[in-house]
């Protein structure tokens, strides 16, 4: 009898009609940032197509958290089915709460906004990204030598990453960190800093990069200085450029983030909050239950010479 | 000077027929026709705002006429822009400055048409050589054509303007108040050049407010009034008063002013030293008009600027009614009741893009303040009262100053200072480019001030006005005080002697001060 009951539910579920005007909105910052477009947004839009619901991506074109907040606030009146928000900075907490209070299912991805009322978070711990890079680097350089690292200074997630890296390195007294640099997510800047670093520190052995543009920039400068292989590079993200640089042996280790999963499942969570396939009580709302996971760590993955062939670039 | 005309027996070089030009609110030119003969010097007279410059701007392609035609050597031409005018052989010395500070003298002279090889590469050697010749021709052999223009004195810069026009060796040369800011000597050079040009058949249109000049060099004169053509006369058959009557529509009462010099010394300067002047000491009495004569670049303006606290780089004691004062900023001077009407109104006197009324109250916004707040109605009232008083020609007090003619602009600068009714007023070239009528009015205003007890220091390069207005004249030469002349020994040649340094009353400080940067 119980079994029969379950099946019936399943059939109903399958036959829930989708409303094509049901709109799910993703709000990020630097909305045109290639890494976001190619991973987060691509997966989100793909999900929307599969589900037959409307997906919209909004956000300012610069890294401008205040503006991202204004985007969140300004879409709330239009009562979207759900909001998928890039957790760029703790400062967006108020805006998130505003959405939650307006009764809009709200999921945060990439970095958690702990002090907010968000219904769910999916992402990776940036601290871990730092640790992974650190461990890979330590192994490659045999625990000694000069290294430097760069990213966008002042961003909460980056700083967490830097911390992770430093925490690994501090166990290796023979490793000297020559400096922390701000490449402003700009290839030319990253390249300039790197080649200056190479001139300034002839026996530099490694560089760690933390934003999507660090890798290509560092790689370019290392190539141009003829130091390929002599200077080990670990960095984040898996753009075509990154993969190519790994294939060419310029970058040794990439730490990938499974960003597609952030938004695919993030969107799915929102959908499930709306359509309540699984109710956990007579009235979840009254019971104060959200019927989706509270926090999901999608985990990280590593790309290096050993597995690069499995990642074929779109180009 | 009728000679060239007969030589080219009356063949018409240029005809302007029924030219009309309308600006918003103003009919600048109303059906003006003009004939220009080969080899003549044709003077153009008219009050400020009569339309002289506008007519010339039409002729040289800077304005397009609303009606009328330009007929050059018999066939109708249209002059869409300055370049075409140049090609047609029309050269012009503008009333306003058309030079660039950051370029060399030579490049200013040959703006846009430097000598080049066939790939458009400038031949600087040739450029500087040509410029040198031209400068020499204009009596400026001492000036290196490589000098940056801004290092030249305002007067010399004006000569460069003239050189620029001549460099295109034009068939028709327009001179729009060329002598307004140059010295007598430079003017003489210019007149010689004009003469020799006419011999070669060049026709010259000469605009000036200085009657003496016109009678000196012109063959014929045409008169404009409020944009309307008043007729053309042969110089030999007309008198100054006739011209003025045609210009102004009435006779000018030519009065000579009585002095209002009091006893008490208002201002006393002792051993003033600065980059452009040396050991200047003088006294100024209540109600006195103290003339400051000198060649352009003599350092008069610098002295005035020093007293007024504009340029801090000078030393010397200044006493105002017996108590010593230190002036570090024009505001200090104004608080002490000293005013300064600067020499180059467009650069230093006016806010061209602002309205007439805003300009008039610039020195003293407080006149329009009621219980701590500005009242715009009051600004207009004050302004209008001065527009009346000085007879400033403007559609209304809200007109932008940039659209007014030179003379009216000058009156506005003067109004700024009357507003302050200062104890001491320094006026630097107060009648630059001002028509005879307005001049007379300005003289009257200045005298009226002295009557009320204001003392005036008057810098002027126009000796006649200096002689007629001053109670006493100081002559500067190259930064040195060379003479102090009481009214009884006023005479042009005396002053010229002291001004050019051939004579010196106080030989005590005859050591020359190094010429300022201007020289090299």
């Amino acid at each position, binding site marked *: 009898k119980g079994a029969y009951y379950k099946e019936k539910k399943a059939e109903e579920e399958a036959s829930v009609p989708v409303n094509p005007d049901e709109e799910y909105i993703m709000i990020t910052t630097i909305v045109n940032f290639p890494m976001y477009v190619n991973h987060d947004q691509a997966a989100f839009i793909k999900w929307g197509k599969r589900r037959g619901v409307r997906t919209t*991506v909004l956000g300012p*074109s610069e890294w401008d958290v205040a503006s991202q907040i204004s985007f969140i606030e*300004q*879409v709330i009146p239009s009562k979207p089915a759900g909001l998928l928000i890039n957790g760029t900075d703790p400062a967006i907490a108020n805006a998130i709460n505003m959405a939650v209070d307006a009764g809009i299912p709200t999921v945060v991805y990439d970095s958690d906004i702990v002090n907010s009322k968000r219904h769910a978070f999916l992402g990776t711990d940036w601290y871990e990204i730092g640790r992974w890079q650190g461990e890979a680097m330590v192994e490659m350089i045999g625990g000694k030598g000069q290294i430097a690292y760069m990213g966008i*200074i002042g961003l909460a997630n980056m700083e967490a990453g830097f911390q992770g890296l430093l925490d690994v390195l501090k166990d290796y007294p023979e490793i000297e960190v020559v400096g922390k640099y701000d490449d402003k997510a700009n290839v030319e800047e990253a390249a300039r800093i790197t080649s200056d670093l190479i001139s300034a520190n002839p026996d530099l052995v490694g560089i760690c990069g933390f934003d999507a543009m660090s890798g290509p920039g560092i790689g370019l400068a290392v190539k141009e200085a003829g130091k390929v292989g002599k200077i080990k590079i670990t960095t984040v993200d898996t753009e075509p450029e990154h993969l190519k640089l790994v294939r060419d042996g310029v970058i040794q280790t990439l730490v990938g983030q499974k960003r597609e999963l952030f938004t695919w499942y993030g969107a799915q969570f929102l959908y499930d909050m709306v359509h309540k396939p699984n109710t956990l009580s007579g009235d979840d709302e009254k019971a104060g239950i959200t019927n989706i996971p509270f926090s999901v760590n999608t985990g990280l993955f590593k790309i290096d010479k050993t597995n690069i062939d499995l990642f074929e670039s779109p180009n | 000077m009728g000679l060239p005309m007969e030589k080219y027996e009356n063949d018409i070089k240029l005809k302007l027929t029924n030219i009309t030009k309308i600006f918003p609110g103003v009919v600048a030119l109303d059906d003006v026709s003009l004939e220009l003969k080969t080899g003549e010097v044709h003077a153009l007279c008219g009050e400020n705002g009569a339309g002289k410059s506008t007519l010339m701007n039409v002729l040289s392609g800077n304005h397009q006429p609303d009606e009328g035609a330009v007929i050059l050597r018999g066939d109708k031409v249209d002059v869409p822009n300055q370049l075409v005018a140049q090609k047609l052989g029309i050269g012009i010395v503008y009333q306003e400055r058309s030079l660039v500070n950051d370029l060399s003298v030579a490049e200013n002279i040959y703006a846009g048409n430097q000598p080049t090889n066939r790939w458009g590469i400038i031949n600087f050697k040739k450029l500087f050589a040509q410029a040198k010749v031209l400068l020499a021709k204009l009596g400026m052999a001492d000036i290196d054509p490589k000098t940056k223009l801004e290092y030249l004195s305002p007067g010399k810069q004006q000569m460069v303007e003239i050189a620029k026009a001549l460099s295109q060796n034009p068939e028709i040369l327009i001179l729009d108040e060329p002598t307004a800011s140059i010295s007598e000597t430079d003017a003489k050079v210019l007149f010689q050049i004009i003469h020799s040009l006419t011999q070669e058949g060049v026709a010259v249109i000469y605009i000036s407010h200085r009657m003496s000049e016109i009678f000196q060099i012109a063959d014929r004169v045409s008169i404009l009034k409020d944009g309307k053509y008043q007729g053309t006369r042969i110089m030999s058959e007309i008198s100054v008063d006739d011209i003025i009557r045609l210009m102004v529509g009435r006779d000018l009462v030519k009065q000579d002013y009585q002095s209002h010099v009091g006893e008490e010394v208002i201002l006393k300067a002792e051993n003033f030293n600065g980059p452009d002047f040396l050991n200047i000491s003088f006294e100024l009495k209540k109600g006195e008009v103290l003339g400051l004569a000198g060649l352009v670049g003599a350092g008069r303006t610098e002295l005035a600027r020093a007293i007024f606290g504009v340029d801090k780089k000078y030393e010397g004691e200044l006493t105002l009614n017996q108590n010593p004062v230190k002036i570090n900023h024009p505001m200090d001077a104004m608080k002490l009741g000293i005013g300064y009407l600067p020499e180059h109104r467009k650069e*230093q006197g006016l*806010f061209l893009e602002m309205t007439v009324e805003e300009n008039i109250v*610039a020195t003293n916004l407080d006149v329009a303040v009621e219980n701590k707040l500005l009242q715009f109605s009051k600004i207009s009232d004050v302004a209008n009262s001065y527009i009346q008083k000085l007879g400033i020609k403007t559609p209304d007090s809200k007109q932008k100053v940039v659209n007014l003619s030179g003379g009216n602009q000058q009156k506005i600068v003067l109004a700024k200072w009357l507003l302050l009714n200062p104890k001491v007023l320094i006026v630097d070239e107060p009648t630059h480019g001002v028509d005879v009528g307005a001049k007379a009015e300005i003289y009257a205003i200045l005298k009226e001030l002295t009557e009320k007890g204001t003392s005036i220091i008057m810098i002027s390069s126009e000796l006649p006005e200096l002689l007629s207005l001053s109670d006493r004249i100081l002559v500067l030469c190259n930064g040195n005080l060379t003479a102090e002349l009481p009214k009884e020994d006023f005479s042009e040649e005396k002053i010229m002697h002291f001004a050019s340094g051939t004579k010196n009353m106080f030989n005590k400080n005859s050591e020359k001060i190094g010429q300022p940067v201007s020289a090299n």
Partner: protein
Amino acid sequence: MKLSLKLLQDRVITLSITIAVLIIISSIIWPNTFPTFDNFSLVLLNLSIETIVAVGMMILMISGSFDLSVGSVVAFAGGFTAYLMYYWGVYVPVAIIAGIGVSILIGFINGFLVARVGINPLIQTLAMMGIIRGLALMVSGAGIQNFPESFNVIGQTKILGFQTPVWFMLIIVALFAFLVAKTTFFRKYYYIGGNEKAAKLSGIRVEKMKIYSFILISSLAGFAGILLSSRLGAAMSTSGQGMELRVITAVILGGASLLGGQGKILGAMLGTIFMGLISNVMILARVSGYWQQIILGLILILAVVIDIILKKNVGIAPKKYLKKAVN
């Protein structure tokens, strides 16, 4: 007729017209979402911070200068105040005063080096922008949160449906609109912008006045930054990035010119309102990705062209033209 034409000379009028048209059209397209009190109050809230800075920028540009360091000052003042409250437990009012104090100091340094020493304002304020951004990173690093409630209320309270920043904006705009129009002190900036030499010869203490204008914009930026921290309940070292250009754009849209001598305070607010409405409309239209930048750019150009066309109907346009071309 003549009057109406003359009115079109005033950017405040022309821009108001443009904005009105924009509002009407949007209300027709999105009758339920656009012309709502909520929407407008949010639009105003989100442009309030920039408008407060724009007021200072307008005064600076009237005097013929500008300041690129405002964005950094916003971040630094907010961060510094936060730092004092969070790490040193300084009393809220004291911390705020300190935050505005340092902003004034920054403004003074800018003003002194530009007006007295004679450094080109672009270089000076650009350099300052870097320096202060660095200091902002120093004080607020990855960000500071958890302020005393008494601080958060400043920017998070709602009065008559509008959140406090909106009220602060309105007060500041009204105040300075009044001062600039009605006091001799602020009037002098028009003369300085109109012709600096003539202004000096008319007895205006140009250098001092310039220093004051830099102090004014810095302190407004500082206040804006503190207000932002309070509104967000957090201080970010990245806030205010790129604000300088957005503000200058708004102010020029509002009638200022890089040459100086022109502009009204009200114009500054209209400029930011126009920009704010555009981005609001684009959100409602769900314009996304690169289209956002493309369309924003096109609208900007369009807005200015409309303004020029309106002016052109009056004879003196060609000259206005030339002037603009020089700006």
